[in-house]
C-alpha cells in the first residue's frame, strides 16, 4: 500500500564543475602513423537527439522577483527572452516591438527546475510490470545498457513534473539494482513521439553506479556475487580493471594503428568514463561507502561527478569538497532502509555550509512535482540550525548546480543571456507551499499556462480515459 518503487531506484550525482580535475587520457599526442582510424567508439552518437525547440514569441515578464539560478536576485525586475534564448534580466528592460508583455506583479521568475535524478519514462505510470524498465537486474554490472532505450515518452509523469513542478530538464537514470546500472540520458521535459525527440542536445552521457544495500541484496538473493559490501567493491574493481585494459588497447590503436580492437559495448561506456566524456552519477547513501568509492575512482583514474541519495553526505562534506564531488540529496527522507537511518533534514544546509557542491533531487514521480518545496524545507532546516541560506542561493540547488552536474551549465540552469529560455513564472514565492507554476517556457516556447487548458499536455496514455485533460 506504500509506494515501494523507491527501494530499487538509485541516484547518481555528477559535477561538471569538476571536469578540470578529471584524469587525462594516457594516450600520446603524437601518432606516427597518419593512416585513417576508426574513432574511439565511446565517442560515437548512434541515437542522436532530434529535439527541436518549439516556436515562441519574444516575451518580456515585468515587475517580478527574479531568482536567477546562480545566486543572483533582482526585485522588481524584468526578464526578456526571444528566439528561444534569454536576452536579458534587469531592472529596466524595454519591450521590443511585437513582444508579449506579461505583468508579473507579486510573482517570481526562475530558471526551470532541473532534476538530476528521475526515473520518469523508465519506471513510468502506470507502474505495471510490462512498463518496468529501469533495472536490467540480470547481472551486477550492465554498463552496456542505456536508459534512453527504456524511456517511454508517453509517461504521464512528464506532464505533472512540468505543470506542478516547473521542471524543464531532467536526467533519467537506470535503477540501482546493479553496481553499474548503465548510461543515463538527459532530456528536455517536452513530450515527443520518441526518446530521441526529448534528448537534450549536446548533453554528455551520465553513468549510473550504485553502492550499498541494493546490489548486494539483489545478487545475494540470486546466490551470486556481490552479496556483501566487500563484494560490491570487488566486482566494481575487477570491472574497472578490464575497462582500463580495453581503453589502453583503443588508445594504442589510435596512436599506432594496426588491428582494430574488438568492440565491447559494456567496456565502451566505462572507457568513456575513464576518458572523462561520460559523467559518473553514483547512488551511495553512507559516508563510509562514499569514501570507499572516492578511493576506487582514484585507483582507476576516473572522477565521480556526484553522489546521489547521499543521506550521510553531511558526515563527509569536507571530503566531498576536497575532491570536487557534488552531493544530490532529498530534503528529509529517512529511515526507509537501513542505509537511510541517519538521514537528517539539515543535510543540504550542512553541505552548503561546508562549501561542498549540493543539490536537491527527486528519484520520485511525486517528489519531482515539488522540488521547489523540498528546497524550501531544506533551507528552513538549515536556518533553524543557524545556517542562513538566502532564497537566491537555495535556488542554485535546483538550477545551476544540477546543470553543472549534468554538464549543461553553459546551456541552461540560469537566466544568463544566451542560455536556453527555460523559464518558470510562479504565482508567488516558489519557496512557499502556497505557490504553483503559472507559466512554463522551454527554449522560449510556452508549454504550460495554468490559465489555458489547451496548454496542458496530455500523454497518449491518458487520451480517451477518465480525467483526460483534467487539472492534475
Amino acid at each position, binding site marked *: 500500500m506504500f509506494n515501494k518503487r523507491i527501494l530499487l531506484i538509485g541516484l547518481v550525482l555528477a559535477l561538471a564543475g569538476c571536469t578540470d580535475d578529471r584524469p587525462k587520457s594516457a594516450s600520446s599526442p603524437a601518432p606516427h602513423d597518419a593512416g585513417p582510424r576508426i574513432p574511439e567508439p565511446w565517442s560515437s552518437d548512434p541515437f542522436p537527439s532530434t529535439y527541436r525547440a518549439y516556436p515562441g514569441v519574444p516575451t518580456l515578464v515585468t515587475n517580478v522577483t527574479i531568482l536567477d539560478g546562480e545566486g543572483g536576485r533582482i526585485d522588481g525586475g524584468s526578464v526578456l527572452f526571444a528566439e528561444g534564448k534569454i536576452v536579458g534580466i534587469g531592472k529596466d528592460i524595454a519591450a521590443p516591438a511585437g513582444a508579449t508583455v506579461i505583468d508579473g506583479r507579486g510573482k517570481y521568475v526562475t530558471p526551470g527546475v532541473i532534476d538530476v535524478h528521475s526515473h520518469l519514462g523508465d519506471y513510468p505510470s502506470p*507502474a*505495471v510490470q510490462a512498463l518496468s524498465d529501469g533495472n536490467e537486474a540480470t547481472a551486477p554490472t550492465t554498463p552496456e545498457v542505456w536508459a534512453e532505450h527504456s524511456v517511454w515518452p508517453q509517461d504521464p509523469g512528464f506532464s505533472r513534473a512540468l505543470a506542478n513542478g516547473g521542471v524543464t530538464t531532467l536526467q533519467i537514470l537506470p535503477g540501482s539494482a546493479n553496481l553499474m546500472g548503465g548510461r543515463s540520458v538527459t532530456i528536455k521535459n517536452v513530450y515527443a513521439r520518441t526518446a530521441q525527440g526529448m534528448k537534450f542536445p549536446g548533453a554528455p552521457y551520465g553513468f549510473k553506479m550504485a553502492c550499498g544495500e541494493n546490489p548486494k541484496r539483489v545478487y545475494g538473493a540470486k546466490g551470486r556475487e556481490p552479496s556483501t559490501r566487500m563484494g560490491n567493491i570487488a566486482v566494481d574493481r575487477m570491472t574497472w580493471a578490464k575497462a582500463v585494459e580495453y581503453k589502453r588497447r583503443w588508445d594504442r590503436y589510435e596512436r599506432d594503428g594496426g588491428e582494430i580492437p574488438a568492440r565491447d559495448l559494456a567496456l565502451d561506456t566505462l572507457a568513456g568514463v575513464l576518458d572523462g566524456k561520460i559523467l559518473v552519477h553514483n547512488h551511495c547513501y553512507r559516508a563510509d561507502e562514499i569514501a570507499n568509492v572516492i578511493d576506487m575512482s582514484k585507483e582507476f583514474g576516473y572522477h565521480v561527478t556526484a553522489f546521489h541519495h547521499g543521506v550521510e553526505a553531511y558526515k563527509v562534506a569536507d571530503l566531498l569538497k576536497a575532491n570536487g564531488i557534488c552531493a544530490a540529496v532529498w530534503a528529509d527522507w529517512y529511515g526507509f532502509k537501513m542505509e537511510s537511518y541517519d538521514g537528517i533534514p539539515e543535510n543540504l544546509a550542512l553541505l552548503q555550509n561546508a562549501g561542498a557542491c549540493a543539490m536537491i533531487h527527486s528519484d520520485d514521480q511525486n517528489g519531482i512535482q515539488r522540488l521547489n518545496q523540498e528546497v524550501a524545507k531544506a533551507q528552513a532546516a538549515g536556518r533553524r540550525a543557524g545556517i542562513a541560506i538566502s532564497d537566491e542561493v537555495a535556488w542554485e540547488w535546483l538550477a545551476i548546480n544540477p546543470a553543472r552536474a549534468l554538464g549543461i551549465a553553459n546551456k541552461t540552469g540560469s537566466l544568463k543571456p544566451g542560455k536556453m529560455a527555460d523559464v518558470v513564472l510562479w504565482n508567488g514565492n516558489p519557496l512557499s507551499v502556497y505557490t504553483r507554476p503559472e507559466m512554463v517556457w522551454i527554449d522560449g516556447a510556452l508549454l504550460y499556462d495554468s490559465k489555458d487548458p489547451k496548454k496542458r499536455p496530455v500523454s497518449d496514455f491518458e487520451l480517451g480515459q477518465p*480525467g483526460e485533460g483534467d487539472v492534475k
Partner: protein
Amino acid sequence: MTRVLLAAAALLAAPAFAETVAVTGGTVAIGDGSPPIENGIVVFRDGRIVAAGANVAVPAGARVLDGRGKWVAAGIVGAFSTLGIEDVSGVGESRDVTARTSPFSAALDVSTAINPNEPQIAIERQGGVTRALVEPDTSRAIFAGQGAAIALAGGKDVLMRPRLFQYVELNEGGARAAGGSRPAAYAYLHAALAAARNPAAAGLVDRDVLLTRADAAALAPVLSGAQILLVHVERASDIRQVLGLKREFPGLRLVLLGAAEGWMVADEIAAARVPVIAAALADLPESFERIAATQSNVGRLQKAGVTVGISLVDATGGGAQQRYLTQFAGNLVALTRVPGMTGLDWGQAFATITSKPAQAMGLDGEIGSLRPGRRADVVVWDGDPLELSSAPVAVFIDGVQQSLTTRQTRLRDRYATPQEGNLPKAYDR
C-alpha cells in the same frame, strides 16, 4: 502568574497534569475547519482543553506561555502510519507490519506490538504530529488485522485505542491477496463475514482453510459496527461496490482509505455518509485503478459534502513520514490559486489533518481539535503550520510538554562540522 518563554529548556521542566496552562497572544488554529484566530488564547487544564479562541479568560494561577508571533494549533493526526510497528521499513527484522507466513489475518492486533521508544515516533512528534492511526498491511488475505490509535508521546503509555478498526484491502492489492482477482476478494469477504456470524463454525487452522476461528471472531465486531472497517479502495467502480456492502451488512461502519477516483462518485459517497481518508496529492495514474487521480480530489469530495481527511496512503515514503501532512495540506490551499483546480481554504485544509481524520474514526470527541473537553494536544509553531518554513517550538500531548530532541537533532549537532576534534565523533555527545 509566570511568563515562560517557549524555549526547549522550559519544556523539560514542564510538570505533567494538575496544572493550568494558557498560551496567549498567538494565532490560534482550532482544527475544526474554522479560520485561524489572531491574538487568541488557548487554555488547558489537567490534560484537557478548557477553551481556545479570541475572548478567552486566563484563569488565575495559570502557567502562561507567551505565544506572540507564534501559532498555537491542534496537534496533527496521522491517519495512515506504521509508527511503533517498524523501525525501518526496508529492514524485515524490525517490522511488525505484515505477517507473511502466519495463518492469521483479521485476528492480528497491532496493539500487541507498539514500541513507544521507536525513534520515528519522536521524529514525527517534532514535526507537530501528536496522534496517529497505526495500520497493519495485508499479506495472505484481504484482511490485514486490527489497527490502533496511538499518542506520539514520550513514555510508555502511547496506546490510545487498541483495535479501533479492522483494515481490509478491496483494491488491486486485495485482489492479489485473495488469489488474483477482485471477484476472489469479494468471495472471501462474503465468506468471512458469514463466518463472523458464527465463529465456532469457521475452519480450523489448515492449509485448505482460509479463515481461522480467531479471524472469524475478530470480524464479529466489524459485522455489528462496534469496530470500524477501514477499506483501502481507489477505483470509482470499486468504491461503488464497497458502498453497496451496507445493503447486505447494514451494521458495517465503513471508512474509505485512498479513494483516488472518489471525486467521480462523490455524491454517492456523501449520500452514504461514509467518511474518506484520502491520498492528499496523488495525481498520477500509477495503477489502472487510479487512472483519474487528481490533486483536486479532496476539494471535490469536500464540496460534495463528504467528510474527508488526508493521509500518507499511496504516498512515497509511506508510513513513517507523518510530518509531510502539513505540507500536503498547504498544497491543497495552493490549489485555490490555480484556475480550474479545486482546493480548500486554510481552515478546511488544516482540518483534513486534525479533526477530519479524527471524525472519520469516531475520535473527534477526544482528539483533532482545540474545542473544549478535547485532549490537550497543542502544538506551538514558529509560523503558519502549513508553511514549509515553519516548525514546532513546543508540543503538548494530553497537556504534557514533550521533548523535541530526536536522533536526528543529535546527529545534526554531532556533525555540525564534519571533522573530528580531539576525540572521535563517537565521544561527541
